[in-house]
């Protein structure tokens, strides 16, 4: 939404001030802000391609003295291997996305398009994951999961991440379906479509932006989630990427391997940045409708 171009008349105020000396100040401030905000990630990326010795040098240097992928090689072979941890995170995220879509799309449809007797009760239950912070119920969930063998499984963690992501997903799907004109649906009713056919043939294709947004948020939040992963994935073959980061820092014999740490930080943020930059429009509109509307 913010990246969408505004109508030309919106620029009149700005244009009027365009030639004022303040403009140069604003350019200077913008550049300074960009430098400050980008610096940590850039410095981390640069540190990750230093040699291991250079990355741990005291005092440190801003720039690498020579390029080396030694740190990445180390992270690749860390404990069960980077591939295992990335696969764990990706699988949990994929399951979370699938569960959020499978649950939130029909629910959004039901709430948006049906007169339900006792709808308030449904709303009350659906609000539970907002009213009860997931941090509070991790103990009973852990004990239940232990009983059913779900601790240290992708499915178990994906369930927790789905709980976390469900209110936003339902809200967004409901809003997407409500925005679809009644006339389109009525035409389908005349054609004799069942309610399920209406959902799959009319509503879902028209709500693709909403579905993309739900999937995008589910991916980023699942990929990054820390506390539940820390508690539920406690075997070194089941770690997700955030837990890998913490164990890379813990390292061996207490000394932090700074180069390997920054390499793993970079590995952990690349998917998020890539997905965000590719789907920025969906991310921003989702953020706005989630928090504001």
């Amino acid at each position, binding site marked *: *939404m*913010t990246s969408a171009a505004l109508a030309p*008349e919106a620029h009149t105020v*700005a244009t*009027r001030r365009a030639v004022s000396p*303040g403009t140069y100040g*604003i350019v200077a401030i*913008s550049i300074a*802000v960009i430098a400050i*905000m980008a610096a*940590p990630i850039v*410095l*981390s990326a640069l*540190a990750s391609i230093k040699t291991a010795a250079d990355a741990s040098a*005291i*005092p*440190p240097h801003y720039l690498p003295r020579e390029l080396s992928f030694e740190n990445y090689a180390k992270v690749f072979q860390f404990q069960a291997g980077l591939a295992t941890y990335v696969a764990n995170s990706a699988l949990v995220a994929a399951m979370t996305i699938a569960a959020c879509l499978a*649950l939130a799309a029909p*629910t959004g*449809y*039901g*709430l948006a398009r*049906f*007169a339900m007797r006792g*709808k308030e009760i449904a709303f009350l239950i*659906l609000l*539970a*994951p*907002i*009213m*009860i*912070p997931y*941090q*509070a119920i991790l*103990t*009973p969930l852990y004990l*239940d999961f232990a009983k059913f063998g779900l601790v240290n499984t992708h499915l178990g963690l994906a*369930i927790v991440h*789905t*709980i976390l992501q469900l209110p936003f997903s339902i809200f967004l799907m409901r809003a997407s379906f409500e925005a679809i004109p009644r006339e389109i649906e*009525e035409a389908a*009713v005349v054609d004799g479509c069942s309610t399920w056919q209406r959902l799959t043939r009319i509503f879902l294709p028209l709500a693709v932006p909403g579905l993309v947004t739900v999937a995008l948020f589910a991916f980023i939040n699942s990929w990054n989630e*820390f*506390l539940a992963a820390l508690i539920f994935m406690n075997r070194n073959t089941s770690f997700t990427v*955030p837990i890998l980061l*913490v164990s890379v820092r813990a390292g061996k014999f207490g000394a932090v391997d*700074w180069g390997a740490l*920054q390499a793993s*930080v970079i590995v*952990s*943020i690349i998917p*998020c940045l890539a*997905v*965000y*930059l590719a789907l920025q429009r969906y991310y*921003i509109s989702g*953020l*706005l409708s989630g*928090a*504001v509307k």
Partner: protein
Amino acid sequence: MSTSRSFDQWRGWLYVAPTLLFVGVFVVIPFGQLIVMSMTDRSLLGGGKFIGFSNYVRIWNDSGFWGALLFTVKYTIVLTPILMILGFALALLTADNTPLKRLTRTIIFLPVVIGLSSSSLLWFWLFDEQVGLLNKLLVDLRVIAQPMVWFASADLAFWAVVISITWKVVGFGMVLFIAAIQSIDREILEAAVIDGAGYWKRAFLIIVPLSRRIILLATLVSAIGSMLAFDQFYIMTSGGPRGQTFTAVYWIYQNSFVSFRLGYGAALSIVLTLIIFVFSTLQIGLTARSEAQ
């Protein structure tokens, strides 16, 4: 559609049912178990004898918990205004759609999509007294004479976390505020320009008051996030030095998953849920009101 109205009464429930079941099984039932557990002396070894409200009485006398809660409140009270004011200033800076401003916006927002664990480890490295580049930069700029040991003092550790989180999430408020600014009727601003109102006058007398609902919502969302803070303290300070930087969630984690006082941890979780309940009720009330508008 009127012919199928009574049919639709339960049809809608059919679409909502899977989610209700999911939330019931994975949120409502665990919350019930949490309440029961909070009245037992359950530990990892067993126990589970009913002890009434003893755990709650114990909370009353648990200075560690109150210290952690107070610390969390302090963190929220300090951080929230910083995020809101800085976020609003950045929104004012980048609200127009020039290429430079869009770029600035995108860069400011990047840290929002990366993981809290990634950003915390990134900043843990930048703040390090030996290899940290922030210390080096401050020394090079002659701000400080020699590298500071940020995590040895509760105050400095607190500010280190506040700085890192400000970098991480300031873009969240900014994006919401940009949407608010862009939705303001341009004619009002242009009329103010004609009336001779300068930029700051327009910002404070028109833009801020017209954005107040979004400011309030952003403040609430941000405050709830801070009240539930865990990752950044677990990773950057480990609750230290001398347990002075434990947050409420961290204290619950310590009791439940480090000391395995499950019954007591459950009681703490209930207390935390009640505190968050106040915030989220306000948030839902505000959201519902704006939807009705």
